C-alpha cells in the first residue's frame, strides 16, 4: 500500500494532542435517556473504540459526533471549535456506515468521488485521489462496478475508500465489520489497523465485540446504559477493570464477593492479603491468574492457595478451562495450559495482587 502520499498527515496535529472533546453530553429520545453526561477526549492519531452492548448508547454517541443527531445537553468540540452546532455536511468528519450505505445508482468510482465532487474539487484532482483511494483498499479493478454486484467485503472496502478519500480529521466507523463472516472479519480487522497506522487518521470505532475492540484499539471506552463505565487501553482495562461490569464484559473473570478484615480478604475457600479497608468488597480474579499446583511441588511463598474439586474440564487447544467447586456453593473458573485430564480435589494458587478490587 503506497497511497500514503495522498495523505500528508491530514490531522495536522501533533500526535497525542486532543482532537475531539465530548463534554458532558446527554441525549434523550422522548422519555428515553440514551446517553447520560458522557465526557471523553480523543487524541489525534488515536484508534479509540466505543464498546458496549446494544442500547449502551455507543452508536448514538457516534451519530452525535457525525451530526445526525443533536445532543440534548453538553457540547462537542473539535480542534478548538464547537462541532455540535455545525451541520453534518460541514463537519471535517467522515463515517463508514454499518451497512455501508453505498449509493446504488453510482458505480464504485463515482461513489468514492462523491464527497470530492459535492465539495467542488477540480475534476483532475478528483481522478487522482479516487485512484489512490481505490488502490489503497485494493479495489481499482472494480471501479466501474455498481455496488449491488459487490460482495460484503468489497462493499466494505469501497465504503472505507469513499470516506478516506476526503482526508477527514476523524473517521467514524459504525460496526463496520459486523456484517462480514468470521474469517473476512479477522482479515479486515488487520487491514483496518494497518491502514490507520499508515494514514495516521484518528479512528473512532464502534463495536459490541470485545475481542475486536481489544485487538484494534489504542483505547477502549466502555459504555453501559448510556454512561461511560471505563476508558483505558485494552491492557489496562483488562488488567485493572474499574467495575464488575467491565471485568465481566471484557474477557472472563471470577467475581469474588469478599469480606475484608485487618488486611485479609476472605471469600469462601479463598483468602488473601489485601490493602483494602475493612468491610465488604468485590474483587475480580481472571481465570488465567489462577494456577494448578502440581502435587510434587509447592507454590511461590507469596501465593495464596486453596483446594477445589474439578467439576468440568473444557478443552480449548493450547489452554483449557476448568470449572472447580470449592465448598458447597462456590464455583471458580481456572484457565491453565492444556495438561491432560484432571479430576478430584487439587490445590490451586494465585497471587494476591491479581485479585483486583472492582466497583459493583
Amino acid at each position, binding site marked *: 500500500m503506497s497511497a500514503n502520499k495522498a495523505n500528508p498527515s491530514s490531522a495536522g496535529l501533533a500526535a497525542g494532542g486532543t482532537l475531539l472533546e465530548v463534554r458532558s453530553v446527554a441525549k434523550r429520545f422522548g422519555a428515553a435517556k440514551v446517553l447520560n453526561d458522557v465526557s471523553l477526549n480523543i487524541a489525534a492519531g488515536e484508534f479509540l473504540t466505543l464498546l458496549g452492548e446494544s442500547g449502551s448508547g455507543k452508536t448514538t454517541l457516534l451519530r452525535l459526533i*457525525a*451530526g*445526525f443527531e443533536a445532543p440534548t445537553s453538553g457540547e462537542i468540540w473539535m480542534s478548538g471549535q464547537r462541532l455540535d452546532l455545525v*451541520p*453534518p*455536511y*460541514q463537519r471535517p*468528519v*467522515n*463515517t463508514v*456506515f*454499518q*451497512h455501508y*450505505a*453505498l*449509493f*446504488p*445508482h453510482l458505480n464504485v468510482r463515482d461513489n468514492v468521488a*462523491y*464527497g470530492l465532487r*459535492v*465539495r467542488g474539487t477540480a475534476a483532475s484532482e478528483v481522478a487522482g485521489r479516487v485512484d489512490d483511494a481505490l488502490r489503497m483498499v485494493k479495489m481499482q479493478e472494480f471501479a466501474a462496478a*455498481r455496488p*449491488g454486484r459487490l460482495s460484503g467485503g468489497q462493499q466494505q472496502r469501497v465504503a472505507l475508500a*469513499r*470516506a478516506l478519500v*476526503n482526508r477527514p480529521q476523524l473517521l467514524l466507523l459504525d460496526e463496520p465489520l459486523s456484517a462480514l463472516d468470521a474469517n473476512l472479519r479477522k482479515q479486515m480487522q488487520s487491514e483496518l489497523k494497518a491502514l490507520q497506522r499508515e494514514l495516521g487518521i484518528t479512528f473512532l470505532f464502534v463495536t459490541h465485540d470485545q475481542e475486536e475492540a481489544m485487538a484494534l484499539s489504542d483505547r477502549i471506552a466502555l459504555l453501559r446504559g448510556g454512561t461511560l463505565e471505563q476508558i483505558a487501553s485494552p491492557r489496562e482495562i483488562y488488567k485493572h477493570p474499574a467495575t464488575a461490569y467491565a471485568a465481566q464484559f471484557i474477557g472472563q473473570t471470577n467475581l469474588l464477593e469478599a469480606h475484608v478484615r485487618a488486611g485479609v480478604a476472605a471469600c469462601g475457600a479463598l483468602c488473601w492479603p489485601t490493602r483494602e479497608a475493612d468491610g465488604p468488597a468485590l474483587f475480580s480474579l481472571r481465570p488465567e491468574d489462577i494456577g494448578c499446583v502440581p502435587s510434587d511441588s509447592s507454590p511461590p511463598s507469596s501465593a495464596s492457595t486453596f483446594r477445589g474439586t474439578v467439576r468440568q474440564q473444557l478443552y480449548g487447544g493450547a489452554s483449557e478451562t476448568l470449572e472447580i467447586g470449592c465448598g458447597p456453593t462456590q464455583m471458580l473458573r481456572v484457565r491453565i495450559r492444556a495438561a491432560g485430564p484432571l479430576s478430584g480435589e487439587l490445590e490451586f494458587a494465585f497471587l494476591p495482587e491479581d485479585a483486583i478490587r472492582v466497583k459493583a
Partner: protein
Amino acid sequence: MYSRAYKSLVSLPPLLWVGIFLLLPYALMLVHSFWLVRDGFIVHQWNLGNYAALFTRTVYLQVLLRTMRIAASVTLCSLLLGYPLAYYVSFYSGVRKEILYQLVIVPLWVSYLVRGYAWKTILGSDGVLNGFLRYAHITHAPVGFLLYSPFAVVLMLTHIYTPFVFLPIYAALESIPRPLLEASQDLGATPSQTFLRVVLPLSMPGLLAGATFAFVLSLGDFLAPLLVGGPSGTMIANVVQSLFGAAYDWPLGAAVAMCILVITLTLLSLTETLEKRWSFK
C-alpha cells in the same frame, strides 16, 4: 411444484379475458381502419385512405396536437404537485404520514363524474370562483375562460391524476434507504445536493411511472373535455367517440384510435426502457 395441467388451468381465465376483451377488439379495430364507408355502409375494401385523411385533413392533427399539449400540461402540473407532496409525506410528515397518505388516496374513491360536476360548479359563470372574484371586487363581470376551455380540462385532469402521480413517486421515495441520505450529508453534500444527486435519481423510476400514468390517461380522456372543455377543449378521444357515434365513420374512427394506440405504446415502451435504466434493485 404444480402440475402442467394445473398451471394451464389457472392461466386460462386471464388469457381468455385478455384475448376476448383486449386483443380481439384491437384486431377488429385494426381491420376496420383499412376499410371505408360508402353511402352510409362500411365497405370491406382495403385502402389507406383513412390514414391519409389523418394527415391531410388538418383538423385531426390539430386536435391531436392540442390533446398532446393538454396531456403534457397535465403531466407537468401533476408532477409539480405530486412530487413535492410525495417528498413531504415520505420524508418530513413524521407521525402524520399515515393520515396524509390516506388523504391523498381518498379522492380516488369519489366518482370521476362527481368531481367533474364539482369543477363545473366551481368554474362556471355563476360558480363559486366567479362569485368570490366579484365579491372581492377583483372582477366585475364573470370571467369566461375559466370553464369550457383547455384550461378547465387541464385543471380537472390534474386534479384527477395527481394521486396517480403521487403513488408511484411516494413508493419510490419510501424505498430509498435513509442511511443513504446520511451518507450523502456525511460526505459534504448540502441538502439540495443530496436531493439532486441521491433522492431524485433514486426516485426516477417512480417519477417516470407517475408521468406515464398522467400522460397516457390524459391522452385518452374524453369525459373531462365533454364536461368542462367546450368546443375549444375538444380532445382526440372525443373525435373518436363522435366518429364511431354520430358521424358513423367507424373506419376513420378506428384509424384515429390506432394512431393514439401507437403513440401510447411507443411512450410506454420508451418509459419502460428508461425505468429499467434508472432501476438499481
